[in-house]
C-alpha cells in the first residue's frame, strides 16, 4: 500500500524512493560492492509484415513463457471524434465488444475467458486500442473473437442503451475524483480548441449518441489499411501468420479514402491558473502542463533525460524537495506525454490545503532551475542509466512490449524505435539537457490547474499574480 504500480506501463514515475539533493550527495558506503560489468540488452525485434488488404503485422515470437499478448490498434481516437460528439471514442470502446453478427456480448466475454483473457479496450488520443493476453495454446481461439469484433461489431440497440446509461453514471462518478477533474481541465486549458483538448465524453454527447453513429464511426476507423496487429509471445511466426491471414485476410478496406485523422499541432498553451472548485477537498490537486516535443523530434530524448532529473524518478529534484525534504505530498512527479501531433510535459502533486502556495513555489523553483542551470555529471549518469534500465524492465513482459510497440505505431514510427530510443538516451549530453530545459521547462510556460477548495486556492495562489480562471462546468 505504498506506491504499488498497478501495471508496469505506468512506470513513468510512481515508484518509491528517496535520495539527497545533488549538492549534498553523501559519499557511497565504503563496503558497498561496485556494479558489475554492464550487459547490454536489446529491444525485442518485431517481424514486420503486411497483408494484401493493408493490415500491418508486428510479430515478436518469444518462446518459453506460455502466453501470447495481442493488441489491435486502429487510427483515429478521441481527437478524431466528430466535433458534436466529444468523447465518442469512449462509447465506441465501451460497446465494440457487446455483440457481432454472430456472437452476443456474453459469448464474446466467455470465449475470451475460456482462452485465459479479458478484453481491454481503451480510447487514446490518436488511436483505439484493443488488447488481451491469453494462454499460448488458446491464441487462435482468442484471435478468432478479436477478428470477428473488428470486422463485424454490430452495436445492438439494447447494448448501446445500457452502455450510455452506464457511461453517464461513470462520468458522474469520475467527476468526484480530483485527478479526473484536474486532467480534464488541464487538457482543455493547454489545447483550447484543438481536438487533443478532449479526454472524456460529456453528458450531452453521451445522451445524443445513437447506435447508427457508433456503427458509422466504427466503419470509418476500423479498416485494415489503417490498422496494426501486434502479437508477442510463444508462437511460431509462420504458422501464426497463416492463422492471421485466414481470420483477417478477408477484412475489406472500404473504397472511400481515409480522412486525415491527426489534428493540427496545437497553438502555444496559456500561462495562467485554472481553478476547479471541489467543495470538501482536504488537498489541492495541482497539475502543471506545457507543450513539449513530438516523439519523433530530436528534442525528445534530451527531454526524457531532463524529465527524469526534474521529476521522473524517485531520486529526482522535485521528489527530493517537496516529498523527502518538505513532506508536502506523497506522490509528486512529472511525465512526458506524446501524441501524434503534440507533446506535453506534465507535473503533478496533491498537497494538503495549507501548503498549496508553498508547493507551487517549489515546483516553479525546480522548473526554473531546469531552465536556467545545467545538470551535474552525477545527475546525468543517474538519469541515463535509470532510463535505459527501465526499458529493460519493460521488455520483460509480453503485454508491455505489445503495448509499447502499439504506442510507437501510434506515433507514426517503426518498431526499431524501441531500440533506437535507448541508444539516443545514452548519447544525450548535459548541454542537450540544459538546452531543452531552457526551451521547455521554465515556470512561465506552464498552464496551471488547481482542484480543491475554491477559497483556499484563491487565497493561496493570489501572490503569484496570475489570472485565475474559474473553470465552468
Amino acid at each position: 500500500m505504498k506506491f504499488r504500480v498497478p501495471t508496469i506501463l505506468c512506470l513513468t514515475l510512481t515508484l518509491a524512493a528517496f535520495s539527497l539533493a545533488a549538492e549534498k550527495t553523501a559519499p557511497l558506503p565504503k563496503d558497498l560492492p561496485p556494479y558489475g560489468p554492464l550487459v547490454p540488452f536489446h529491444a525485442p525485434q518485431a517481424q514486420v509484415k503486411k497483408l494484401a488488404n493493408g493490415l500491418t503485422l508486428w510479430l515478436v515470437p518469444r518462446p518459453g513463457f506460455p502466453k501470447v499478448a495481442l493488441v489491435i490498434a486502429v487510427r483515429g481516437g478521441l481527437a478524431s471524434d466528430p466535433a458534436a460528439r466529444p468523447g465518442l471514442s469512449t462509447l465506441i470502446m465501451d460497446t465494440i465488444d457487446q455483440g457481432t453478427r454472430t456472437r452476443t456480448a456474453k459469448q464474446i466475454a466467455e470465449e475470451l475467458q475460456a482462452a485465459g483473457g479479458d478484453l481491454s479496450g481503451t480510447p487514446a488520443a490518436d488511436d483505439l486500442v484493443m488488447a488481451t493476453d491469453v494462454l499460448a495454446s488458446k491464441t487462435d481461439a482468442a484471435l478468432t473473437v478479436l477478428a470477428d469484433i473488428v470486422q463485424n461489431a454490430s452495436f445492438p440497440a439494447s447494448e448501446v442503451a445500457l452502455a450510455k446509461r452506464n457511461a453517464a453514471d461513470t462520468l458522474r462518478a469520475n467527476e468526484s475524483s480530483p485527478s479526473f477533474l484536474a486532467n480534464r481541465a488541464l487538457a482543455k486549458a493547454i489545447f483550447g480548441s484543438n481536438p487533443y483538448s478532449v479526454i472524456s465524453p460529456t453528458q450531452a454527447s453521451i445522451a445524443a449518441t445513437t447506435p447508427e453513429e457508433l456503427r458509422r464511426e466504427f466503419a470509418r476507423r476500423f479498416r485494415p489499411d489503417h490498422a496494426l496487429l501486434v502479437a508477442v509471445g510463444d508462437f511460431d511466426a509462420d504458422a501464426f501468420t497463416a492463422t492471421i491471414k485466414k481470420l483477417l485476410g478477408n477484412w475489406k478496406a472500404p473504397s472511400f479514402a481515409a480522412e486525415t485523422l491527426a489534428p493540427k499541432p496545437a497553438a502555444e498553451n496559456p500561462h495562467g491558473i485554472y481553478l476547479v472548485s471541489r467543495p470538501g477537498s482536504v488537498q489541492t490537486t495541482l497539475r502543471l502542463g506545457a507543450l513539449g516535443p513530438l516523439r519523433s523530434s530530436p528534442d525528445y530524448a534530451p527531454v526524457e533525460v531532463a524529465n527524469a532529473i526534474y521529476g521522473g524518478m524517485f531520486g529526482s529534484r522535485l521528489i527530493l524537495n517537496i516529498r523527502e525534504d518538505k513532506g508536502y505530498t506523497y506522490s509528486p512527479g512529472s511525465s512526458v506525454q506524446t501524441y501524434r501531433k503534440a507533446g506535453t510535459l506534465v507535473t503533478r502533486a496533491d498537497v494538503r490545503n495549507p501548503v498549496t502556495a508553498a508547493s507551487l513555489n517549489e515546483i516553479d523553483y525546480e522548473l526554473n532551475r531546469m531552465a536556467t542551470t545545467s545538470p551535474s555529471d552525477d545527475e546525468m549518469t543517474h538519469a541515463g542509466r535509470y532510463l535505459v534500465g527501465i526499458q529493460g524492465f519493460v521488455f520483460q513482459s509480453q503485454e508491455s512490449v505489445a503495448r509499447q510497440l502499439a504506442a510507437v505505431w501510434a506515433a507514426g514510427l517503426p518498431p526499431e524505435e524501441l531500440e533506437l530510443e535507448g541508444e539516443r538516451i545514452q548519447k544525450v549530453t548535459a548541454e542537450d539537457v540544459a538546452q531543452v530545459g531552457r526551451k521547455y521547462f521554465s515556470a512561465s510556460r506552464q498552464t496551471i490547474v488547481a482542484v480543491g477548495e475554491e477559497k483556499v486556492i484563491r487565497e493561496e495562489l493570489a501572490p503569484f499574480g496570475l489570472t485565475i480562471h474559474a473553470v465552468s462546468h
Partner: protein
Amino acid sequence: MKRLARAVLVLVAAGLFVARAPGQDWKVQAEKRKLKNGLVVVVSEEHSAPTFGLCIAYGSGFRLEPEGRTGFAHLFEHMMFEGTPEAPKGVFDRVIEGGGGWNNGDTRYDFTEYIETAPISALDPVLWLEADRMKALDFSPANLDNQRKVVEEEVRVNVLNQPYGSFYWLDLPQKAFTKYPNAHNFYGDFKDLDSANIQDVETFFHHYYVPNNAVLAVVGDVKADEVFGKAEKYFGDVPEGSVPPRPDVSEPPQDAEHRFTEDDKLAKVPALAVGYRMPPRTSHDAVVGALVGELLHNGQASALYQALVKDKKVAINVEGGDNWPLGNPFEYNGPTLMTSFIIYPPNVSEKDLLSAYDAVIGELASQGPSEQDLERIRTKMRSDWYGQLEIPVERASILSHATLFDGDPSHVNEIPNELNRVTPAEVREFRAKYLVPSNRTIIDRVPVKSPPGGEGGSEK
C-alpha cells in the same frame, strides 16, 4: 537481451517445440536454502533477459502493529527507506536507480515486502543494501517526522480526498472482525501516526526485521548457487533475532449479518461493499473460495457482472474476490474476506441491488456452476497465475510469500492443479457454508446531497 543469448534461446525452444503441451505444464523452477541465522533464500533462474527481480518479505503486517499505533507497520515500511548508519538517506535510491533499477515496498495483513528490479550488473550492490538495512536503521526523529507527513499525505490522497475513501478495504474489515489485529484502521488514525516515536521504530525493527522472520527471493539471469553464496556473504553476519510470539488472531464465529450505512461527502454515485469471512488459507475450502471468488468477480464473463450489470442493470461496475484487494487468495495468514465492491446507479435502491446479488449467490446453490463454467474460470485463473509469475520481480514477490507462509516456494506450481480439482459439488458446499448472510458484513456508502450551488465538476 544480447545477441548470443537470443541465438541460444531459439535453439532451446526448437528442441522443446515438439515435446511440450503448450500452456499446460509450465512451471517455475525454484531452489531454497536456509542460512544459519534463519534467513530463507529462494532462487528462480530466468535467463530470458540480463535482469533480475528481488523481493524480501518480512513476516509482519497490519495485524502485528501495537494498539494505539494503528498504521504503524506501514509508517515503519517508509522508515526502511530513510537511511542507515552505513548508507545515509538517499544512498539507497541513488544506487538502485543509478544502477538502472527501481524499488518499492508495500504492507499487507501478514507481510511487508521490499522489491527491487534492475539490470544484473546491480545485483551485488542491491543485496548489500538490503542486508545493510536489515542490520540497522538511521533511527532519526527528523526523518520520522518527514515520513509521518508523507504518510499523512498518502492517507489524504488515497482516502480523505477520494470518493469512497477506500471503504471496501479500510472500513469493511473493521466492521467484519472483532479483534484488534484484524479490525483496526490499517492506514492509521492521525492521532496514532502523530504519537509514533523513534522508540517505537526501534522496537518494531528489533522484533520483526530479523533474518529469521524474512524470506529473500531472487529471480533472474543468475545461477542459484552463486546467489546462495552472495546471500551468505552479505546476510550471513546479520544476527538472528527473537521474534515475539504471534498473537492469536483467530476470530470467534460470526453469528449474524452486520449492516451499515456510511455518508460520503465526495462521492456522487452510491457504492456497496459486501464481505464474507473466508476459511483458513491452508484448508481445501480456501482453494474452493479462491475459485468461487473469481467465478463471481473475474471480468465481464463473471456471474456478478453478467447478472448485476448486464441482465438486471442494477450496477455500473463490480469488482472483488477472495482477499481482494489486499493480495491474491493465497497470501494471508489469518482472517480475511471475500469482498464485492459494487458501484450502482443513483436511481437503484440498495434493496434491489442486494436482492439481485443474493439471487446470484443463490444460484450457486440451486444450479451450481456447470462443468463448462468451471473449466473456463480454471483456464482464466491459470492464465492470470502465469501472468503473475512472468515478470521476475513479481515472481520473486509470489515466491517469497509462498515460502514465508508455507515454507515451500514450489507450491506456486501446484495452485493451478489444485484449482483443477475443484468440483461443482464443492462449490455448492462452499456456498452453503460460507456465502450465507450470517457470515457477511455489508456497507452501503451513500453520497451526501451537496448544498445548492456548491456542486463541483458536473459538466453541462
